[in-house]
């Protein structure tokens, strides 16, 4: 009886291991009607704080290894390296350090890709499908060590000067502002 129970437990454990995470292929069509609102500052004109609205898309993208590695592929395909040089920076800012101009939250990174930013970051609204924008944003976080090592990819398809994101040290824990703004050093 005990032996049977053990077997059942082992088999159940093996079967459960088959579904490590969901791999959603068809994105939610509602994603494209973007309702996410991010604030870059804690002050706003008039009374009250700036309006922020989070749809919860973050949780679907941040912790799924599939999305992070898709983002990595798209980062190359859409030539992000043209300005950000494999994350090390070039004419655009570096992405693999822990210094953020607008904050490290995935919503803010997605907004930067979608809407563009002053001084050269173009807008990709309509050019990159919304789910892919989130995938790239998830990967950009992994570049800086903001994604746990079991989610970030631990290898590259091409030759790189640094180990895979999953093997990089995690970003240091730091106290950030309300929207994740980096504190001046």
């Amino acid at each position, binding site marked *: 009886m005990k032996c049977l129970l053990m077997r059942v437990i082992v088999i159940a454990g093996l079967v459960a291991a088959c579904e490590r995470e969901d791999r959603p*292929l*068809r*994105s939610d*069509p509602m994603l*494209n009607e973007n309702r996410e609102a991010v604030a870059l500052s804690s002050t706003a004109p008039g009374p009250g704080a700036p309006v922020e609205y989070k749809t919860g898309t973050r949780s679907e993208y941040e912790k799924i290894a599939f999305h992070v590695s898709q983002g990595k592929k798209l980062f190359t*395909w*859409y030539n992000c390296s043209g300005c950000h040089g494999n994350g090390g920076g070039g004419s655009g800012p570096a992405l693999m350090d822990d210094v953020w101009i607008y904050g490290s939250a995935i919503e803010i990174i997605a907004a930067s890709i979608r809407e563009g930013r002053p001084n050269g970051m173009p807008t990709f609204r*309509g*050019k*990159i*499908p*919304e*789910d*892919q924008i989130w995938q790239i944003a998830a990967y950009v976080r992994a570049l800086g060590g903001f994604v746990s090592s079991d989610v970030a990819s631990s290898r590259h*398809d091409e030759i790189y000067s640094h180990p895979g994101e999953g093997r990089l040290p995690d970003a240091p824990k730091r106290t950030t502002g309300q929207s994740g703004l980096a504190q001046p050093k």
Partner: protein
Amino acid sequence: MRSVASKLATALPALLAVSGCAGWQSVLDPQGPESKHLSGLIWIFTGLSAVIWLAVMGVLLVAIVRRAPERPDPLALHMPIERRGVMIVGGAVLATLLTVIGLTALSYFSQRHLYATQASAVVVKITGHQWWWDVRYEGDRPDQVLTTANELYIPAGQPITVKLAASDVIHSFWVPSLMGKQDLIPGQDNELQFTATRPGVYRGQCAEFCGWQHAHMGMFAVVLPREQFSAWRAAQTAPALMPDDPVRRKGAAIFQSKACVMCHTIRGTSAGSRVGPDLTHFASRKSIASATLPMSRGNIAAWLLDPQGIKPGTNMPNVSLAPDEVEPLVSYLEGLR
């Protein structure tokens, strides 16, 4: 009635098996000298193996049925029986040796023929991607270079050289009616030479498991008479036709302003990305998405609206299109002949 039905039911698999031997994707229906060599080898090996198997089974049967006579004294040397035993075993060893040497020689000389290189009329570079084929015709001048996808047009009766490369994982290029398999390996340049004798359309298939949609990584090899091939090549080298009616013009504008332009090339327009298949003469092809769907207006629309439903995991994303954008975009793509 029932007996007819049951007879049909038993005959059907056999019929299917026989019909599988001929057709547009079959090793047993060779259409060129290289594939003829290969199918010859297959028949010889199969025939010989069948003979050997039957012989072994026969000897086994004899050994089971016929019992050896009991000898009065097992230790006494009985010369005639011993000699017979030596002859039989020696004969079997000799026959095995001869068979192995014969087949090795046969295979060696066939391979020598298969891998003999000669000057080629057409040099094509095929790059395997998950899950489609990039087909690039090389030329001496830049204006002779032409890129298409998932289709290999070749002239009949002329030797063709195919250079093989891969961008992501290992694939394998195989048009069973025309040649043997050859792998496409990232970082390694492989080459294959073959000739197709009879004009026709032959189906090819990726023959090395390469991911989710490996089974939907097909392609077509179209063998044309020489003059028709030249005409095809000239037509394909030309840039895309400019749309001439307002609906298709609107479609072209949608193509340029949406995600399409991030991955695809249409020569003659500002779309020049090399991540996805070249679409310059998209509608002249026989299929969509690497021999997954036949080319038709309805299938183009289906593919645009739900690629992840048709070929889950494909790198073509679900692009959001407004309802009134589908019709012009499909018309535009349909006009890219």
